[in-house]
């Protein structure tokens, strides 16, 4: 039986970022197992926004967490690119959410004030402001705005990135730094041993581990049930569309429309409670197409080329779950969506915390136990 210091189960954005952080911390022998099941690869459904805006309403801890992650993104990306050789296509060009009509814009102004207050409470800033239609037009000069666009909420301090390149970069660098990566390998049981270690049984043999990190998305629940832990997650589908390539016109990513460096426009993103069904529906495609054309009429003439659905790992309050299992302090569970935005903290904050050297006060707010009221 193979003996490892830390076994990370789940090679998605969350697991890979954490595994990278662990090898960077010099955590000994770190092994990362990745099923590579196409239906579970949530990063394919990630819109690619490295954002803090709009996150954490009524939840100061989460708002602070998101803001911290965004602040570290440019540095994280530079380091990742230099060391892995992968271009993750980060463009730190800000971010906006457009409004149709004055009422919606007013609603945004209220939400910005609310979040400023929440962030203030958490001791962090929230550099978001409201743009009028003209001001919005100034930041997207090459895109003609639809008639109903009244303005937007906006910040300079975030951007967008290629989620799949990000995953590839982290996986590559993890291995370069001495981590062991195994694709097409599934874990099916975590068995506590008398000496405090864990035996993890997989499709290709067993591992004896000092610590285990479970970051397997919707696959995590089945590993935790025998240990008596019920993970508070539910599946939420997001559908998105991609167009053919077009000359680069839009550099600021919007919540529902962004243009990638390749020239394709990504349009999304829906939120539906549909259980584990990644099918794409004409209704959702139509909604998104309508919204995109209302915002930027020129998009109407572009061909829609690809669409897909991905199943988010959603929690009741939307914030991540970072939890040590009660009675099994050496088993850590990570369950979250928006793992692109949070990637820097996965590597730089969660990894040290797993090794016993992190901000317990902040991170303990995200325990799975917070839902048992």
């Amino acid at each position, binding site marked *: 039986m193979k003996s490892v210091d830390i076994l990370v189960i789940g090679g998605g954005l969350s697991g890979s970022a954490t595994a990278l952080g662990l090898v960077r911390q010099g955590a000994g022998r770190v092994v990362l197992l990745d099923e590579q099941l196409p239906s579970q690869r949530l990063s394919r459904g990630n819109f690619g926004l490295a954002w803090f805006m709009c996150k954490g309403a009524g939840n100061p801890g989460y708002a602070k967490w998101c803001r911290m992650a965004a602040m570290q993104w440019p540095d994280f990306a530079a380091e990742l690119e230099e060391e892995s050789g992968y271009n993750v296509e980060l463009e730190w060009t800000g971010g906006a959410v457009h409004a149709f009509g004055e009422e919606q814009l007013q609603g945004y102004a209220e939400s910005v004030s609310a979040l400023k207050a929440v962030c203030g409470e958490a001791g962090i800033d929230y550099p978001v402001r409201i743009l009028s239609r003209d001001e919005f037009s100034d930041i997207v000069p090459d895109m003609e705005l639809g008639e109903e666009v009244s303005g937007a909420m906006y910040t300079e301090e975030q951007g967008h990135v290629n989620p799949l390149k990000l995953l590839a970069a982290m996986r590559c660098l993890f291995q370069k730094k001495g981590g062991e*990566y195994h694709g097409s390998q599934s874990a099916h049981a975590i068995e506590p041993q008398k000496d405090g270690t864990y035996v993890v049984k997989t499709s290709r043999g067993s591992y004896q581990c000092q610590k285990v990190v479970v970051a397997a998305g919707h696959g995590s629940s089945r590993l935790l049930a025998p240990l008596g832990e019920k993970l508070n997650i539910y599946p939420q589908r997001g559908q998105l569309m991609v167009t053919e390539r077009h000359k680069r016109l839009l550099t600021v990513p919007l919540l529902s429309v962004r243009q990638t460096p390749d020239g394709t426009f990504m349009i999304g993103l829906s939120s539906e409670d549909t259980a584990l069904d990644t099918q794409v529906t004409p*209704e959702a495609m*139509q909604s998104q197409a309508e919204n995109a054309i209302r915002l930027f009429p020129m998009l109407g003439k572009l*061909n829609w080329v*690809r669409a897909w659905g991905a199943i988010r790992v959603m929690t009741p*309050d939307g914030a991540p779950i970072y939890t040590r299992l009660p009675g099994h302090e050496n088993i850590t569970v990570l369950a979250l969506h928006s793992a692109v935005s949070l990637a820097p903290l996965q590597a730089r904050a969660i990894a040290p915390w797993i090794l016993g050297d992190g901000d317990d006060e902040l991170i303990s707010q995200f325990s799975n136990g917070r839902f048992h009221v």
Partner: protein
Amino acid sequence: MSRHYDVIVIGAGPAGLSASSSLAELGLDVLTLDEQSRIGGQIYRNVEAAPAESLALFGKDYSAGLELTRRFRDSGAAYEDCASVWQVNPDGKLCYSRLGSSKQVSANYIIAATGAMERPMPIPGWNLPGVMGAGAANNLAKEAGLSPSGKVVLAGSGPLLLLEASLLIKKGVSIAAILETTPTRPPVPAIPRAPQALLRADFLWKGISMLRDIKKSGVPHYKGVTNIRALGQKTVEAVEAQCGEETLHLNADMLLLHFGVIPNTHIFRQMRCRMAWKPGQRYWYPACDEWGRTNHERIFAAGDGAGVSGALAAQYKGELAALEVARCLGMIPEHERDTLAAPIKKSLRNDAFPRPFIDALYAPRPEQFAFEDSTVLCRCEHVTVGDVRKVVGEGVCEVNEVKAITRCGMGPCQGRMCGPALAEVVGAELSLSPEKAGLLSIRPPLKPIPLEEIAAMDLGADSPEGANWLLDKK
């Protein structure tokens, strides 16, 4: 406003035409959707408008299509041309685009007869202007009476390569050489299958006659050729290849490639039909019962799209699917279905006699897929074989993940041209059969659709309160 039919048939090639005709003749409400502007599919392309010279040149195998088209027109089946189906649901709903607008329609049963395509085989320079499929040249001849005007090289393997060569010879086209990758000596598996092929003397005679024409023409004909490459700056100017010890260098204005025919499976994969792998021919096809029924109750597959067997077999399979659908709809009882099916099944068996021999003779060999790193694999996104190998080297074992990182398969063709070779490369790197490398997930739209067309689409009164984003974002 949604329109509901008994059956929708997708494709107006031999399988689709036969299925539609049978169903309409049996009194069922059938809609035939075909993305081309003229019926006939590939093999009977433009047959209704073909001038006498074309009918004579392409022979009985082509003019036989006129019987099918006449029957189809007489049957009264509803037909929409230029109709591009872009999403099909196993529950019988489908979306299609026609003349700039998209519609959703539904049926109790859908017969997908979307046909086959030439096996895309990357070679260095295959994306140079002037390099096209041998079938493409055939299509241009049938549709537009066009013939290559300069020097042509034909390369690859399979009966259709030789058929196209013999057609071009008949038309007086200048052929520099035929480069067959088929080994000089027939592969061992072919030999025991030869006697069965002899039961179809007509088929063999056709083949012998074709080979004789090629020989008589004096066109250089090489066998066991490897390392084919197209060279040139703006268009193809020369073709190089290896034949035993000899390095061939041929000046050419056009290179016609053909490496066999494989089912066009996108529609089945979009519907998540259960797919099966045919190891000898190295292609995927929808798993079906004897009538063409897939694992989805309402979805049938007919024709070469269900498995490559040629035009006559496609016609018979279309008929069989129609009979079973008619039985399911209560139009004919089981015994009548069986009575009507018996002669068709007999014809199908008879037609199939030479197939195992031909399949074995021209079977694709794994060595053919040992590409150089610099060869372009994904034409749309310009991803090379080397790019794919690098990613597999980093631990990726599945084609969808390779696609996500390299963009291979993300272009407009949606992996039609790169999918097969991608699986071969990934499989070879992992010492697995290409079957184990995975299948690219196919999502709607099956063909690109302008966003404004989706936005304007009438989805009917029962569209659910689906998407809700923006301020819902947590």
